[in-house]
C-alpha cells in the first residue's frame, strides 16, 4: 500500500509548511502534519515526525516563529506561525515553483 504513495518531492516540504501556515494561521506540529496530509489527499506518504526537523530549519531561517500554547484538547503544544520574512520567502518560492513547473510542462508538451 505504502509503496504506491509518493515521497515528498525534494525541497517541497518547506513550501508546503509555509503555505499551510500562511493560509491556516498558527498551528502545532500535529495539526500541521494532518493538514498537509489532508490537502495532499493521501497522495503523499508523510512521516509526521519529519515535519519537526523541517520546522526547526524554518525557525532558524527566521521564516516562522514558535510559541508554546494550549491546544483545543487542552494540551500544552508548540504553535508555529509564519513571519513577514517567511511570507516574502514563500512568494519567491511559489514563483520559482511555477517557473519550474512551467518549464517541465513545456518539455513534456514537445511532440514525440
Amino acid at each position: 500500500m505504502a509503496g504506491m504513495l509518493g515521497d515528498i518531492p525534494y525541497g517541497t516540504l518547506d513550501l508546503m509548511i509555509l503555505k499551510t501556515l500562511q493560509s491556516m494561521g498558527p498551528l502545532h506540529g500535529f495539526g500541521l502534519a494532518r493538514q498537509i496530509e489532508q490537502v495532499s489527499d493521501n497522495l503523499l506518504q508523510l512521516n509526521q515526525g519529519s515535519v519537526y526537523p523541517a520546522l526547526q530549519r524554518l525557525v532558524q531561517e527566521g521564516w516562522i516563529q514558535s510559541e508554546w500554547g494550549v491546544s483545543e484538547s487542552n494540551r500544552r503544544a508548540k504553535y508555529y506561525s509564519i513571519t513577514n520574512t517567511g511570507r516574502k520567502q514563500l512568494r519567491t518560492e511559489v514563483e520559482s515553483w511555477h517557473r519550474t513547473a512551467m518549464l517541465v510542462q513545456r518539455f513534456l508538451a514537445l511532440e514525440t
Partner: protein
Amino acid sequence: MMLSFPMEKVRAVFYRRRLDAELDDEIQAHLEMARDEYLVRGMSPEEATRAARRDFGRIERAKEQHRDVRSVVWVENRFRELKFGARSLRKRPGMAATVVLALSLGIGLPALAFSLIESALLPRLPFENADRIMRVERAGQTPLTDADFAEWSSRQRSFEAVGAFQNARLTLGIAGWATEPISAGFITPSVLPLLAVEPSLGRQFSEDDASQGAPPVVLVSEQIWRERLEADPGVLGTLIRVNGRPAQIVGILPEGFGFPWDQQIWLPLRVDPFRGQRDSDIETSLGVVGLLRDGVSARSAAVELTALTREMDLSNLGETGIGSQVVVRGYTDIFSEPGQSAALAALLLGLTFMVLLVACANVANVMLARAVARKRDVAVRVAIGASRLRIAGELWAEIGLLAAAGGLGGSLIALGATRVIDGVVPPGMPFWVDFRLSPSLLFFVAFVAALAAVMAGLIPALQASRSNTHDLLKDDARGASSYQLGRVMRRLIGVELALSFVLLVWAGLFIRSANNYSQTDFAFGPEGVYTARISLPEEAYAEAADRARYAETLRDALAAIPQVTSAALTTAVPGVGSGGIASIELEDATAAGTTDLLRVQSVAVTPGFFDVFRATLLAGRDFDARDRAGSPPVAIVNAEFAERHFPGGALDQRIRIADPDNSGEWLTIVGVTPDLMAGGLSPSTSEAIYRPVAQVAPPALMIAARSVAGFESLTAPIRESLMGFDPDVPLFSVQAHDVSIDLANAQWKWMSILFLICGATALFLAALGLYGVMSFWVIQRTREIGVRMALGGHRGVIVRLVLRQGMRLTSLGLIAGVLLALPAARLLGGAMFGVSPYDPLVFGSILGVLIAVAWLGCWVPALRATRIDPMRALAAE
C-alpha cells in the same frame, strides 16, 4: 546550507539538554493528539497508540535530524567524543596517569627551554628601539682605542648615535656605610639618550661632565639610592667617594637599569683620541654601543665601519689585520662568537624536542596497545554501523585530552623549574636577564601540546584506519593484523631507546669533559693558591713608578705573612680569564722586512709568579730584582710561543709590543715557561708572553699566594697588609684558585646537567615504554603462557621467554642508538675537553646503563607472567 543564525546554532550546542527535553514534550503532545484522534474514530486505546506511532515514523530518527538541523553538528560531535574519551580514560586511571606523566615531561622540557631562551639567551633590552641597539667591536677581541671610537663616531653614517663605555670595579664610600667594591660603568654622555633612558631624578651627563678637569659627577642606581641613601629626594649634590675620590651625585637612574652589564654607578667617560691603547687589563677595554638608523641593517653597518677601520689602520699602523674587521651585533648577543646564542637556543630546543619525541613515541605505543585491546569492541561497533570517522574521532579526542593534561603538567614543570633557576642564578647576570614566565610561553605550550597530540596520534590513527573489520572479528590471538601492530610498537620502542642513547652519550661526553678538566694536571697546581683583586686609585697612582713601587712593597708584605709560602702579583691567573691580548712583532722578522703582527696573551707578573703556580721554567730564568723600570726590558714566553717562532731557542731573542709609531722598546726573552693557560679555557690564542710588573706598572692587579693555611685564615692578614700602607686601595674577589677554576669549568658542568636531564628523562620514558609494551605482550600471550605452565613449564622458562623478547626489542634500539650516536657525538667536536667523541668509556657505560634499565623494564612484566594462573588463563577464553 546557509547558516543564517550561526549564533543560535552555537548556543544550541550548550543548551542541548533543554532543547532535547522541549522536543520530547513536543513529540509527546503530537502523539497524544494523534491518539486522541484515532480514539475518536473508535479505535481501542492500544490500536490508537500504535497507529499514532506508525504515522509519526521513527521517533529517534526525527530527533536525530532535529538535532542536526538545530546545532553545529560538528561541534556537538566533538563534545560527545570528548565526553566519551574522558569516560574511557577514567576507566583506566593508571594508563591515563602514565601517559599524562610522559607528556608532561615531554612538553615541560621544551617549555622550560623556551622560557630560558626567552629570558636569558635571546632577551630584549628593556628599552625602546631595542632591536636597533647594537654592540660594535673589532673582531677577535682586539682592543679598541679611544682614537678608534673618536674616528668612528665622527665619520660613521649607519648609526643615529654611538656611545662608548667601560666597565670597572671601583670602591664606593657613602657616609654611614663601609667602603666596598662596586661595579661601575664609565659612559660617554651620548649613551643615555641613545638608549632613551631618563634619570628618575636629577639629570644625565652633559658633554661638559666628560671634559678634562670637569668637577667629578656620578649617577647612581635606584637600588643604591633606596638602600644607602634612604631614597632621599634631596640627595642631588651630595658627595660620595668613588675609589677614594669625592664625586657629586647628579642623578638617579631608574630601577632595572644596569647598562652595560650589572652596573650600579656611572661616571662620565672622556674619550681622548690622543691616548693610545688603554694599557691596563680586560676590565678597561673600550666597549661601543650604537643605535642603528631605521632601515639600516647590522650587516651594512659592519661593512661601513670595516671600511673606515681598514683605512684608519692602514694610515696608523701601515697594515690591516683581523682586528680591522668590525663586528656589529645585537647588544644582548654577548657570546664571543656572533650567533652563538642562537645556536645555543637551537641546541636547547633541539634537545628538549628529542625528549618530546620519545614521550610521543611512548604515548603512541600506549594508544596502539589500547587499540589492540579494544579492537573487538571497535570492530563490533563498526559492524553495526558506527562510522570510521567516529572511531577515529574518539581516538583523537582521547589523545587531545591527554595532551591538554600533559600541557598543563608541562607548564607546571616549567614553572617550578623556572622558580628554582631564578633562586640559583649566580650574581653578575646582565641586567636584562629576567627569569619569568611570559604570556608567550602559554602559546608555546599550546603549540607543543598540539604538536605532541598529532605526533602521538598519527600512527595509532593510521593503524586504526588500516585494520580490517573482518580480520578483527575473527578469533585472532596471533593473527596477521596483531603481528603488524607488534611491528610498529617494536619500532617505536627502538626509536625511544635510540634517542635516549644519543642524549645520554652527549651527556656522558660533557661529564667526561668536566671531569677531565677538573682533574687536569694544569702544570700549575691550583690547590692551595688564593687570589684576590686590587685596583689602584687612578689619581693617587698616576705615575707608573708609584704603581710599580706599590706592587713591589705589597709583594714583599704578602711574602712576609707566615702562612704564605710564596706570593706574586699578576694581571691574570692561569686557567681563568685573560690578561689581555697584545699584538707583538719579532725583531728578526721586522729586520727581514717580513713583519707579521702576532696576537698573544700578555700578562704582567712579579717575580715568584711561576713559583706560586709550581711551574718550572723550561729554559732561562724568572724575573728578579734586576728587572725594574729603566733596566733592559725583558719577557718570558710560553713554550708554545717559543716553539712556533723560535724553534732554534727563544732565549735572548727580542720581541716588542706593536704600536703605531714603532717606538716600543725591544724586549729580550729571558725565560721559557710551560703552558699555563694564560688565556683561560678556550682562548683565541694560546701563545703567551709574560712581562715584569715593575716594567709594565698596570693599575689593576691580582694577588696570587700559595698558602699552607686555609682560605679564611689568609684573608685577614692579606687585607691587613694591604691596609697597612694604603687604606684607599680596595681588595675584592678573594677566592681560592681551585674554586675559580671550578667556576670556569661551569660551562661543562651546566652542559652536562642539561644533557643529563634530557637524557635521563628520555631514558625514563623509554623504560616506561618498554615496560608498557612488555606488559602488553604478556597480556596478549596470557593464554600461551598459561598453556606452557599447565604443561609444566618452569617459572624460569617463562621469565626467560619474556626477557628474551624484551631484550630482542632492546638490542634493536641499542644498535640504532649506536649507529645514530656515532655521528651525533661528532657534532659536539670542539665543545669537548680532552675526550674523543667516540670515547669507549662513555659508549660502554651508557650501553650498560641502558641494558640494565631495559632489563628492569622487562623484569616486572616477566614476574607478572609467572603469576598467571593456568586455569584462569584458559578459562578466560
